[in-house]
């Protein structure tokens, strides 16, 4: 082996990493080569010098300072942890909170939205207000809107309300029958026919809001609107509140319009009595008679299958001027026989 190779292996020789043959070769070489022997001695001496370096004492305060810093860090960490949760806690908590907010929002939205029936009842009856004051097109629009299924949208209800109240004031005398025909199923032809008919005084029903017979003469629109508010909406709201208090559902209000058979007779009271008898004979329910302004109205509920029989039998006792097809799909259908006095009669 050359000296350079020996010098490279001296360190491994000192650390006992070499095989016995290699060790023997190095020892043999060093015994003959003074330079390599000296290098080996220097290396041994270097290791000795380094190994004999004294240990240095750390400062006496070192451990205390370390512990003080750790304690301080622990305290601040504990304080911070209260306010800044780690991410693996924070994210699920925030997601849960978000879900909770959504659920509560949906619940509140559903619980505070008005019932479809309430919406319809709270509105001033568009037929009367519209027919009294608004132009024909506007009236149709109003009807269309009214006939749409009411949505749980309070803003819309308020808008409609405002629209109804904004109707310009002015006593425009419009035949009230026209309004009576409007609620549902009324056609333009019917309206035209109605305008030819003698005026049948109508009045607004407190419950349904639909125009019915009226005792008082027609009044101006603002007055009517005011009356709707006071007579229609307020008692209804009070009744519903009462029902809610008693935990009883408000009675379902029929949305049917009666079939009207309008007849004229020189002796209305006789015809009315006969008509009442016919209704009774056709198993009519809640048969009632009311009068007003020269007309007699017999109202009742009969089986829809017997409506045609009613028509034919009424036609037998008096001259039928008009038959207004109402609407209704229930087991009993509301009918009205309106007996008008024949002006040509005695």
């Amino acid at each position, binding site marked *: 082996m050359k000296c350079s190779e020996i010098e*490279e292996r001296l*360190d*491994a020789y000192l*650390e006992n*990493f070499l095989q016995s043959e290699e060790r023997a070769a190095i020892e043999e070489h060093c015994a003959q080569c003074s330079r390599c022997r*000296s290098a080996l*001695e*220097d*290396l041994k*001496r*270097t*290791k000795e*010098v*380094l*190994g*004999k*370096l*004294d*240990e*240095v*004492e*750390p*400062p006496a305060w*070192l*451990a205390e*300072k*370390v*512990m003080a*810093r*750790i*304690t301080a*860090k*622990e305290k601040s960490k504990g304080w911070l942890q209260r306010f800044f949760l780690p991410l693996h806690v924070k994210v699920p908590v925030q997601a849960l909170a978000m879900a909770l907010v959504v659920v509560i929002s949906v619940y509140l939205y559903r619980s505070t939205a008005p019932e479809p029936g309430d919406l319809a009842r709270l509105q001033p009856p568009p037929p009367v207000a519209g027919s009294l004051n608004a132009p024909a097109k506007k009236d149709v629009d109003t009807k269309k809107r009214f006939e749409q299924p009411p949505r749980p949208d309070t803003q819309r209800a308020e808008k409609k309300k405002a629209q109804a109240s904004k109707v310009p004031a002015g006593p425009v005398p419009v035949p009230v029958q026209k309004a009576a025909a409007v609620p549902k199923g009324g056609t333009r032809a019917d309206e035209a026919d109605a305008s030819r008919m003698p005026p049948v005084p109508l009045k607004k029903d407190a419950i349904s809001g639909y125009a019915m017979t009226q005792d008082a003469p027609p009044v101006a629109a603002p007055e009517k609107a005011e009356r709707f508010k006071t007579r229609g909406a307020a008692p209804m709201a009070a009744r519903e509140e009462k029902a809610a208090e008693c935990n009883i559902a408000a009675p379902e209000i029929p949305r049917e319009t009666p079939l009207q058979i309008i007849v004229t007779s020189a002796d209305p009271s006789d015809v009315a009595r006969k008509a009442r008898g016919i209704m009774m004979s056709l198993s009519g329910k809640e048969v009632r008679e009311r009068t007003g302004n020269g007309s007699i109205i017999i109202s009742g509920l009969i089986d829809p299958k017997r409506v045609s029989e009613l028509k034919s039998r009424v036609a037998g006792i008096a001259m039928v001027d008009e038959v207004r097809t109402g609407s209704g799909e229930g087991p009993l259908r509301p009918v009205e026989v309106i007996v008008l006095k024949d002006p040509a009669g005695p």
Partner: protein
Amino acid sequence: MIHILTIGNWITRLLMQEGTKSAGGLSNSEGKGSRPLADEDSQYVALCIQGEPQAFEVLVRRHQKKMFNIAYRMTGNYDDAADIVQESFLSAYKAIKNFRGEAKFSTWLYGIVVNHSRNRIRHASGKAYHEPVSLDADRATGNESRPIDPASGEMPAIDLLVRKEMQEKVQQCINRLEKDHREILVLRDIQGFSYEEITEMLGLPDGTVKSRLSRARSAIKESLKKVFGDLQ
């Protein structure tokens, strides 16, 4: 009567077994899947992981001297060494939950202090560590006040002075070495760690450690020969 004594003994034995179980549970609670810690620090490490900082004080007091000496021999500066040791202990406390017990705790701890020392050397101004230091002009560093723990307490004062001076010169020779050579020389020839421990601390292969150590020894030998002349 015999029955009562037998039952009493049985209960006592059971209680003792329970006590042993609970005490043993503490040391075995750290890290699933890792091999159980075999070193004397494992109990305190487990307590630290469970959130008891007082247990860490035992480890600090136990290892501070060794850590300080590693830092001091690597940096050659007493104050810097104190800072490094503090930072290393704080880092270790912060990361103690990640300690898996794959190596001895002390080896893991000394690895941290070597890293901190290396970073300090790297980020230092360079003047203190990298520029050649005059072997006669070291008094300005304030190192003369450091307490040395001499091997023999009965050494005459003159010998103590000579020894101290000699050791300072050796330290200056170490300071002039490259960073990599310095750390491996400190760990092996000054602190006496095994090759296995050094490979764990530095994260280097065994062959790299050996070759690097060989080059570091050659470098320090030349440096010492320049300072002391003949080493014989």
